[in-house]
Structure formats: C-alpha cells, structure tokens
C-alpha cells in the first residue's frame, strides 16, 4: 500500500442551479480541481464519479463516461467508473480512488461527485430519495426519507430525552457556519424560533431540520504522496479510509438510535490513523437532518451515546469550540446534492487543512475527518486527512 495525497480540489456553488446541467456542473468542479493541482489531462489515469440517481433525476445513466467525455478525456480512453451508494456515493467514490492509487494500479486519479436534483418536482425528488431505503418494505408503504430520520429522532427523544430545541441548535449552528461559506446554498443565519416554528415535514422534523434539495458538484485529484510535491506545494495526506454497511431498512437495525455502520467504520479509521476522537480538529459529518448530526457525533466518539443533543445545545460543536463540526455549514446550510456530498466534505476538510477557509477557518487545523452516510445508515464511509 502506498501513501495517498490529495493535490487538488474543486467545488461548484450549491443551490437551485436551473441554468446548469449535470455534465456542466461536474466538468466545472473537475476543471477547477485539475487547475488547482497542476495536473493536465495527460497525467490523469482514471476517473471515479459518485452519483446517486441521475437516472431518476435527469433520466441519464452511464454518468462516469459522460463526465469523462465532457471533461475532454474521451480521447485518452481512461477507465471511468460510476460509484453508487445512495447519499454516500461521493465518499465511496473517494475511497475507490484512494484504493486504486494506494494499490499502485493508478497514479493520478480524478474523483468527482455530482447530483442535479431540481429538474424534477418535490414529490418526484422525494420518491427518488426514498429509493435509498427499502423500496418494497419501507417507501412502498408510505414512509419518506425524512420520515425514517423522524422515527430515529422520535426514538432518540424517547430514550435520551433529546429535545426539539437541541435538534434545532444543530440547524442554527450549521447556518451560522454556512453564512461564512461563499459556495453554500444558504448563506444566511437562522434563529432557533424560526427552526421551531417552521412547517412540519415529518414530525418531529420541520423544514429547518432537513437539508435542502440541491444541485452541485465537487472534485478531487489524488496521487501517490511521494509524487505529490511534483504537482503542488500543499498536498494533504489521506491517513485513513474505511467503509461499512448495515441492514438497508431502518426497522431491521439492532438500535435505531445508533448507526452501527458508522461505529464500525470509525473504529477502523481510528486504528488505521492511530488517532483518537480528541485528536480530530474538525469533522464534516453527514447532517442530512439535524438528528443525523447528533447521532453522528455520538457514533464517532466525540460525545457519549445520548449526549449529542446536549453537546449541540451547549455549543461544543460550534466553529473553534471543543470540536468544529461542519465548518462548511454542513449538508443543512451548504446544500446536499447527494452524489456530490461526500466529495464536497473532503474539499472542505482539505481547504481547512491548507488554511484557506477564510472566515470559517478552524484555528490550527491539522487533522480533519469526513463522515458520509448512505440511506438511513446502511452505508457509512469515513476518511481522516492530515496536513503535511
């Protein structure tokens, strides 16, 4: 196994981007990452593209070859592979790129993630997202994706006395961070009163407990660490990569207040990196809903099980507090173009570790983590990065 570095990053603005296409978005992010890294198309050996559901959102499959084509790489005939693990597609695409470089099969790899979600109506987008759960035994019967997380929240409130105010604190904090991120969908602070008074989506989750439907793309360039300095002065090392799975349906889980896939992947990355939760300076966690961030910080070991709500309310997860959670604004405020999310999380962590995050910069950031979830927790993929 070779050490792997990230040498370039690119991310589009996230939001309702009606004037942009799926291919336009990912090519924009990819070219930015290539420019940032200094590699040219002649250097690129392979492409991995994370995308959850271009088939349902824009009736286009075979997305990776399309990306390669419009990035001008078709004439080079490099392998282009689409990676799909629902909302974890981007994080898993990064892991596939990492494995291919670490193994020695490829040298320079471009990892992309993209989703174009606003070309369909809200109910069709809800249908498409529900396909991340069990179609036959969950969504067919009427439960939506927010509905699954709502049942997780209700049970967490029942077992650990988590409150709606504590859930709301996550949204308020993430909007405060997102207001400092020029690529975020919502660059606007919100109040706890706004969160609590918002229209309900799936009780107890209201509109401001949910990440939005978004368009966007992100990209990374990877290469062996030993070659990184040839391209860039500020490479960031990937010091751990792990992925885990669990039952597809929420009702089959051992415990719906814990994501065992996160716990398993976290155990693996901490071992690989020889780090403990207290060694992590910042983490981009998968906050598709406010409850998801609370469960994530518990499962990643930053707080004890059941104390995620309290920690969020007390401000321990704010920018430059105990642990900076979602300095980008998270999925909640930055936006959640599902296939792009895992890659965009890595773009944020690398930007932070390079000290280039501007007003939302985490002080003395040396070690950062990304945590990307698919479905209601059937896939978890975690990476740890270190500045070198």
């Amino acid at each position, binding site marked *: 196994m070779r050490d792997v570095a990230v040498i370039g990053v690119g991310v589009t603005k996230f939001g309702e981007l009606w004037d942009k296409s799926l291919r336009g978005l990912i090519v924009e992010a990819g070219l930015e990452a290539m420019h940032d890294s200094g590699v040219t198309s002649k250097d690129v050996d392979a492409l991995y593209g994370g995308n959850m559901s271009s088939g349902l959102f824009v009736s286009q499959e075979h997305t990776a070859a399309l990306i390669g084509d419009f990035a001008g790489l078709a004439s080079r005939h490099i392998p282009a592979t689409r990676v799909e693990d629902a909302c974890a597609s981007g994080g898993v695409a990064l892991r596939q790129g990492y494995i291919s470089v670490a193994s020695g099969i490829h040298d320079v790899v471009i990892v992309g993630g993209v989703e174009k979600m606003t070309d369909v109506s*809200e*109910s*069709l987008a*809800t*249908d498409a997202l*529900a396909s991340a759960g069990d179609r*036959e*035994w*969950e*969504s*067919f*019967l*009427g*439960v*939506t994706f*927010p*509905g699954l997380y*709502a*049942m*997780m929240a*209700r*049970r967490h409130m*029942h077992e650990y006395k988590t409150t709606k105010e504590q859930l709301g604190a996550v949204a308020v904090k993430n909007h405060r961070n997102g207001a400092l991120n020029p690529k975020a969908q919502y660059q606007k602070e919100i109040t706890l009163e706004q969160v609590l008074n918002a*229209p*309900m*989506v*799936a*009780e*107890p*989750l209201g509109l401001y407990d949910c990440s939005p439907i978004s368009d966007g793309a992100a990209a990374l360039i990877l290469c062996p660490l030993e070659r990184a300095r040839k391209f860039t002065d500020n490479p960031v090392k990937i010091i751990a990569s792990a992925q885990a799975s669990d*039952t597809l*349906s*929420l*009702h*089959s889980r051992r415990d*719906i207040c814990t994501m065992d896939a996160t716990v398993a992947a976290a155990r693996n990355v901490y071992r690989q990196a020889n780090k403990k939760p207290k060694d992590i300076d910042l983490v981009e966690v998968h906050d598709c809903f406010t409850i998801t961030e609370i469960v994530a910080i518990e499962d990643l070991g930053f707080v004890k099980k059941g104390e995620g709500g309290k920690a969020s309310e007390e401000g321990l997860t704010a920018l430059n507090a105990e642990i900076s959670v979602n300095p980008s604004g998270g999925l909640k405020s930055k936006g959640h173009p599902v296939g792009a999310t895992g890659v965009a999380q890595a773009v944020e962590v690398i930007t932070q570790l390079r000290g280039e995050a501007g007003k939302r910069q985490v002080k003395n950031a040396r070690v950062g983590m990304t945590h990307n979830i698919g479905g209601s927790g059937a896939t978890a993929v975690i990476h740890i990065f270190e500045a070198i």
Partner: protein
Amino acid sequence: MSAPRFWREINQRYNLVGTECGNCGKKYFPIRSVCPECHRESIGKMKKVKFSGNGKVFSYTVIHVGSSMFQMQTPYIMAIIELDEGPRITGQIIDCETKDVKIGMPVESVFRKIGEDGKSGTIYYGYKFRLMK
C-alpha cells in the same frame, strides 16, 4: 404487458408471512433465505411463519410531505411496529387522530389498499396498523 412490480411479495404483504431460523429460532420479516445470526448453518432451515399482526409502536412520525403516491393522504402516521413475535416492521397507522399515537401503544394489523398506479392503474393492497381498543 409487464407484471406490476410491487406484486412480487404479494403473499407476505397480505398475510404477514416471514421466516423463522431453524437453527437459532429467531424470526424475521420480510422473508430471508439466510439468517444474519447463523449464516451458513441456517441455509435450508429457514421456515415460513405467519405473524399474528399484533405488536407495539416502537417509533412513529406524522408525514406532512409525502411521496407521489401518498401526497393526497397527508398528514398521515407512519410507524415502526415491534411485532409480538420479535421482528420490527414499517407500516401506516390508521383510524385515529395524528395526536393519539405514543411509543409503546399496542396495535393490530389490518388489510387495506396501499395505493395505485395512477387513476386507472393497478391497485396495491397490503397491511396497515390500528391502535387496539
């Protein structure tokens, strides 16, 4: 003409038929051909079992933004039910007010229309739950 895609599991949907592992005795819904506890030892020993349909509310939500087939029913209650025999199952709770449901309440299964493929399309039937009197 193609076969309606949600008819594959029709027997289980009407009758709450799951499986019991002949090795460890654990029961599952829906049907599985391998026990996640016993793995190889369970192969060929998974037996069909019919559940009573009685259970308790394990968690629930009131859906206000539904997917396309359910948009006209909002607000409606969805729950994870823990069946008396052990497995948990997702289903709608009907015939009550949205504020009436609490975790731990006993429920029973009922046979209902779930939805349809458009106005003149296939009608889908299956289980829902209601609070026990």
